[in-house]
């Protein structure tokens, strides 16, 4: 007997494990009859998951946490039994802003502290000359992109709420908005950074892996009560995703994976562009300059797929730092409880291990993250909008 499931997704490369799990038949092999539903906004994905129109969804990790805490919307407890990957975002800037930053740069241009300090000098100069503040696009108030941009610029002394404008833009509009000058830069997932570079209107300034060594991005999200009622379905879903994630990581499978993902009803962009993302080999400037990083997007490597509650705590800390919620021990516990390594382990039948790194986040600035002392951790950062 097969179980029919409806799963929502946004056309982005980090939905890779989900799309491959379904289109390569790994979910069918687990007895699941999955219908993938392409969505146009994270609000839609969240609402349709919350009210049960979707059984599961490709979801921004911070939205899963916000939904469980009732931040910004109705409170619906969500759990993430599978992590759809680590990293994958990039910061792209307009040619004009790129030139301005490069003029101010002192040191290695791939060092985020160097670029953040350069940005802060650009911002100061603009203020002096009476120019409009720079505008940065990101994808959602509760998004990794929002927190990554903020973390980076704040390290250089730029207050993201005072010194620049941060605006939400749907990913498909990012490129147009950069081209017509509505934003000067954006942080978004693949393939949009590459699309901007290919069109000659953007430079990739940073891979997110420059800013955070391991940053959780999207999760496979299900309602907590649904997962409790359907433990076997959750386990089957996780197993299919593990197979898919491992399939994608095999270099010889990449062309096939890229073809599956590029299909018009999936991500709908050129397979070659998608493969660049999976390979971590990206064109970063319109002149064809390439940059490689083995950490650009991790789907299965380094245990990337196993949910890590420390990552959830870091995201919660960012919500606190930027005034989206107050610091409360019970809320931290709820946030960490969204990420469920136990469900992942139960499904895989192997006892997973976390990366074991002393600093699993690996941020380029500030002290190593300690989920047991968020107050102390946040106090180490000069810029923030929270009250201890």
């Amino acid at each position: 007997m097969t179980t029919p499931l409806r799963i929502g997704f946004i056309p982005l490369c980090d939905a890779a494990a989900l799309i491959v799990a379904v289109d390569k038949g790994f979910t069918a092999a687990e007895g699941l009859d999955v219908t993938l539903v392409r969505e146009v906004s994270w609000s839609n994905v969240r609402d349709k998951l919350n009210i049960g129109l979707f059984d599961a969804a490709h979801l921004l990790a911070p939205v899963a946490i916000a939904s469980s805490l009732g931040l910004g919307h109705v409170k619906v407890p969500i759990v993430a039994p599978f992590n759809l990957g680590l990293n994958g975002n990039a910061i792209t800037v307009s040619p004009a802003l790129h030139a301005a930053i490069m003029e101010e740069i002192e040191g290695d241009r791939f060092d985020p502290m160097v670029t953040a300090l350069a940005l802060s000098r650009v911002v100061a100069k603009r203020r002096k000359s009476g120019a409009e503040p720079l505008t940065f696009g990101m994808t959602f108030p509760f998004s990794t992109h929002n927190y990554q941009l903020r973390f980076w610029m704040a390290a250089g002394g730029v207050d993201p709420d005072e010194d620049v404008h941060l605006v939400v833009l749907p990913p498909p509009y990012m490129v147009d908005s950069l081209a017509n000058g509505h934003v000067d830069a954006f942080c978004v997932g693949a393939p949009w950074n590459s699309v901007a570079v290919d069109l000659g209107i953007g430079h990739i300034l940073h891979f997110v892996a420059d800013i955070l060594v391991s940053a959780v991005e999207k999760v496979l999200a299900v309602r907590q009560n649904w997962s409790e009622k359907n433990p076997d379905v959750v386990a089957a879903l996780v197993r299919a995703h593990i197979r898919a994630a491992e399939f994608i990581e095999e270099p010889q499978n990449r062309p096939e994976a890229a073809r599956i993902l590029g299909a018009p009803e999936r991500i709908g962009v050129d397979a070659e562009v998608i493969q660049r993302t999976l390979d971590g080999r990206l064109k970063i400037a319109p002149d064809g300059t390439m940059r490689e990083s083995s950490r650009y997007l991790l789907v299965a490597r380094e245990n990337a797929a196993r949910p890590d509650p420390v990552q959830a705590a870091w995201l919660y800390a960012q919500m606190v730092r930027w005034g989206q919620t107050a610091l409360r021990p019970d809320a931290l516990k709820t946030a960490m409880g969204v990420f469920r390594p136990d469900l992942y382990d139960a499904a895989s039948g192997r006892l997973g291990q976390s990366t074991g790194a002393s600093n699993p986040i690996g941020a380029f600035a500030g002290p190593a993250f300690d989920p047991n002392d968020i107050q102390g951790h946040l106090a180490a950062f000069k810029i923030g909008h929270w009250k201890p």
Partner: protein
Amino acid sequence: MLWMPCPVYEWSMSAESSPKIVIVDESPIRAAILQEGLREAGFTGVVHISEMQSLLARIYALDPDIIVIDLENPSRDVLEQMFQVSRAVRRPIAMFVDQSDAASIQASVEAGVSAYIVDGLKKERIKPILDLCVSRFNAFAKLQDELDRTKHALEERKVIDRAKGILMKLKGLTEDEAYVLMRSTAMREKKKIGEIAQSILTASELLK
């Protein structure tokens, strides 16, 4: 019946009786249907935004009490920013509907519409507006569906006519005979007459 102003509510009458409503929708027809419905129900302050660029700035300039947006619109995420406390937001946006009102959320999401409500607007004022949006969106979807079906039927009609012409020419049949031949073939092969007509067209293309 004569309408009498009620002094108890007078202090907030203007805002309470006709809240300012903004419709964000790229479909002009659907927006018009919704706008008309709201006007009929007595909501006069309705503005339609169809241009998504600088959406938030447009909304702030209009300073509405309620914002209605269709779920096919990617700019819905842009509106979620209004929940955030920031310099740009003059009046914070409350929940999209009451936390307890699950049925209402379900109905609106299923109809493909979402509403954002400025903090302080009373729930009983919101409900009829939301219900109206849901029913008009459902009506539009039905209309769209009928239109699609009509279009499909028209196209099928054209294909059948062309196939008839081919049969008449190749087999020297009259129009009626050509039609009867296609219909009996369709019945024998348990197919639709449109499918048979399409295969005649395809075959004649191949044999050209």
